[in-house]
């Protein structure tokens, strides 16, 4: 359904989010409202490829070692293909988590994942634990956004980063009218045809319109205590990535 609504572009948005994060091996990620694991899997792929590049570079520097030493170093590196990176996927919905676990098994992700049931407004984690906190297309559904932001601030380590990927406001008037047309005329119809649920998708589109625009969300993030808060518009504002640091 996501694919048909966004014409597959939602995958690109999520890719851009993980690229912006640019995680290094050893990063501990908390993905909130990410039940189906999209961000988590992308994170793992990214970290794995960075780790491979690191190992290759190390190997190039060690070309004067004997072959025995090289074989030995393979052993110890093999056990750290992710370099100690970990993702904790937290969602309020048990069904979503189940789907996510199944997808993980199906796609072959065995290590580095944890699935936790939790509410974004009251996370079941201790203070100062995570390097990065992401919430992709989830913060719109949180009743008290300010509480969720405060919780995000609490569980992040000093220097940690908050990243939020969410639908936002289009300022370009031409694009805005086209977008409105598409949202209100096409999406509920798709919802009815594909999922048999007009009402939910009508609700979806309306909730997107009621969500605070970029600057307002930026102010809310700053209120929670984050610094160097900034946002990046994707597709002229249809989607925006907000980023802040706990400093």
């Amino acid at each position, binding site marked *: 359904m996501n694919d048909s609504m966004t014409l597959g572009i939602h995958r690109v948005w999520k890719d851009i989010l993980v690229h912006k994060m640019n995680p*290094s091996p050893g990063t501990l990620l908390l993905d909130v409202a990410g039940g189906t694991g999209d961000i988590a899997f992308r994170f793992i792929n990214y970290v794995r490829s960075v780790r491979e590049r690191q190992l290759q570079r190390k190997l190039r520097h060690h070309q004067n070692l004997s072959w025995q030493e090289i074989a030995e170093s393979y052993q110890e590196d093999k056990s750290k293909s992710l370099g100690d990176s970990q993702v904790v996927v937290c969602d309020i919905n048990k069904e979503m988590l189940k789907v996510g676990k199944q997808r993980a098994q199906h796609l072959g992700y065995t290590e580095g994942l944890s699935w936790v049931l939790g509410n974004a407004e009251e996370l079941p984690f201790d203070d100062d634990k995570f390097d990065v906190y992401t919430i992709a297309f989830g913060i719109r559904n949180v009743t008290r956004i300010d509480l969720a932001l405060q919780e995000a601030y609490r569980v992040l*380590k000093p*220097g*940690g980063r908050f990243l939020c990927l969410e639908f936002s406001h289009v300022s370009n008037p031409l694009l805005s009218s086209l977008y409105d047309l598409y949202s209100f005329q096409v999406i509920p119809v798709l919802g009815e045809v594909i999922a048999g649920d007009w009402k939910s998708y009508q609700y979806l589109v309306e909730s997107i319109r009621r969500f605070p625009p970029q600057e307002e969300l930026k102010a809310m993030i*700053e209120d929670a205590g984050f*610094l*160097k808060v900034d946002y990046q518009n994707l597709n002229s504002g249809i989607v925006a990535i907000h980023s802040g640091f706990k400093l």
Partner: protein
Amino acid sequence: ALRYQLSVPQRALQASAVLRRVSDEQHKEPLASSSQQQFDSHPTDQQPEQESQGPRPSYTGQGGQESEDYESEEQLQHRILTAALEFVPEHGWTAEAIAEGAKTLGLSAASAGMFQNDGSELILHFVSQCNTKLTELLEQEQKQVQLGEAEKKPLDQFLRDAVQARLRMLIPYIEKWPQALSILLLPHNIPASLNLLTSMIDDIWHYAGDQSTDFNWYTRRAVLTGVYNTTELVMMQDSSPDFEDTWRFLENRVADAMNMGNTANQVQSTGEALVQGLMGAAVTIKNLTGLNQSR
């Protein structure tokens, strides 16, 4: 100086985890030198982790006043970049070096996301730091001359020593410096890097005693910039012990630059002589043809 004003509403404990009370470090001087102080005091920081996670004074609703003493974001960024320099020989001028630097300060590696991914800011920070060190060095030398402790150097030696001192600061990073040069030449970095270069050359001429206000100002700067840039490039592929070849190259270029001044004068006086000769020839011809007689 940029002060970060935390304009947040009253909260009982708005504890900023890492931004430190700068007043603890006797911060009353202008930004540049205070950053230097922090750079110098950093190596003596024994326990960065404890420091950043220790108890913080709470705001008591006087946010405006108290925030004056807190370190600004910019200063924190400077600290991270300085810490990152130590990892450049290993990781190059990259986000990884910045992440390692942040870790030594007790911050998560994710804070490297504050900077651009291509390492430009790290390089510009380093260049700016080197220029500041050079200026301080020249200032000290000038003081010594004024106090009579040292003799005033002749111009060519002054220029040679200044350029050499500045280039020597690159030695710890020399392997990765070509990479840095190419990044500095990227279009979006050129304004900043050009700015740093010209102000450095300016400083050198200032301490050399240049007070020209005519076209010489431009020629002097262009000449010294040329000398500096070419010497830097030579240094990149110099493998002689302690870069002797580079310093010899520098000596020759500075000598050329000195002679250039003479050559310019020679050209001018030759030109003048030539013009006088032509004028004389013209007057002679006029006399010969009788046009000069006033009737």
